[in-house]
């Protein structure tokens, strides 16, 4: 009985090991991964506010990755992640946007066995509250792009500060310091006011 138990144990372990090795080598031959990296234009807070078609504060309710024709490379597809955002307020709204829900697209995501990793693209997590500087509307998928990529979206932390660990690096580059959401809202309002004068 003991001998049988040992043999059974060995068989189970070898079985698990074989599956692991098989999966490892299967992934070697099948995965399609593209890494995308952009050099970023240095921008000022005025640039960010002026160039955005709208600035929203909202909550991410859903995210989904899809393939679309690339906006950067002709005749090729990119993988983008679409975030459906429930708008809490428009902080700047030069285009008179009024939707209570908007879709926002960012480069990167996984569809099937294809993955696109965009180093300089913002990311969304379901449930996050975020401030987003909108760029143009992509009518083909009815989703906004984000102005200045990773410099145009910042998660609002539970303590009211702007930006997670990664985002704060970009935020500090643009705005010169860390801010709370309230301070950022005041800054945006101040810039918007000076631009309209």
């Amino acid at each position, binding site marked *: 009985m003991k001998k049988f138990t040992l043999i059974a144990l060995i068989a189970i372990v070898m079985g698990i090991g074989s599956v692991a090795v098989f999966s490892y080598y299967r992934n*070697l031959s099948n995965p399609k991964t593209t890494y995308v990296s952009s*050099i970023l234009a*240095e921008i000022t807070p005025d640039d960010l506010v002026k160039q955005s078609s709208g600035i929203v504060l909202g909550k991410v309710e859903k995210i989904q990755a899809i393939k679309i024709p690339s*906006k950067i490379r002709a005749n090729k597809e990119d993988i983008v992640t679409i975030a459906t955002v429930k708008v809490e307020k428009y902080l700047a709204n030069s285009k008179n946007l009024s939707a209570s829900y908007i879709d926002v697209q960012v480069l990167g995501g996984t569809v099937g066995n294809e993955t696109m990793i965009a180093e300089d693209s913002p990311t969304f997590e379901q449930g996050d509250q975020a401030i987003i500087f909108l760029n143009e509307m992509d009518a083909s998928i009815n989703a906004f792009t984000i102005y200045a990529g990773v410099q145009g979206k910042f998660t609002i932390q539970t303590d009211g500060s702007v930006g997670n660990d990664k985002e704060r690096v970009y935020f500090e580059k643009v705005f010169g310091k860390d801010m709370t959401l309230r301070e950022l809202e005041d800054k945006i309002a101040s810039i918007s006011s000076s631009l309209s004068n």
Partner: protein
Amino acid sequence: MQNLLSIKKLSIFVVVFTLVVVSSAFYKPTELKAYSYSGIHWSSYPVSVDTGDASVPLSWITPLAQSMATWNSQTSPFYFNVGYSGHQIKVQNSGNNGAPATAYISYDGSNHITDVDVYFNSYYSWSTSGEAGKYDVKNVATHEFGHWLMLNDLYGGGDTEKTMYGYVSTGETKKRTLETDDINGINAIYP
């Protein structure tokens, strides 16, 4: 009794072997602070760069070649050459997206690079002479060729003078010249 001992030894060996195989599938190289490397690399070199796409202005050919030569002149055996490999430089209008240039790098499950294309965004104004108000071709190209080596962008306060610093301004030319950490990067990845 002897058979029992042999089975025990065999079972221990199998368990250890399985653990080694499974853990090696999750191994990732660590990043170093002076430069940032993704762990992905070319399986062979030289790497041919096709600068002959119709979208690339003729005046750009020389600064693009000079950018390659900047990386080629390091002690690493890795080098670029100009050819018709399918790894292309292109110029295309991607709109006002805050990104003067973007590199697309595809790689396989062995972390070997299979294809690279770089797109310069013609929405922005470009110069080959460091002209004020325009992005310099050689400046940006030298940075982008660093991505061909899979060096990542750097964003720290101490990285502003490095070629792989992730921000660029108009009229800037400092990325044309590699700093010590940029050089350490290529020499470490391709020793």
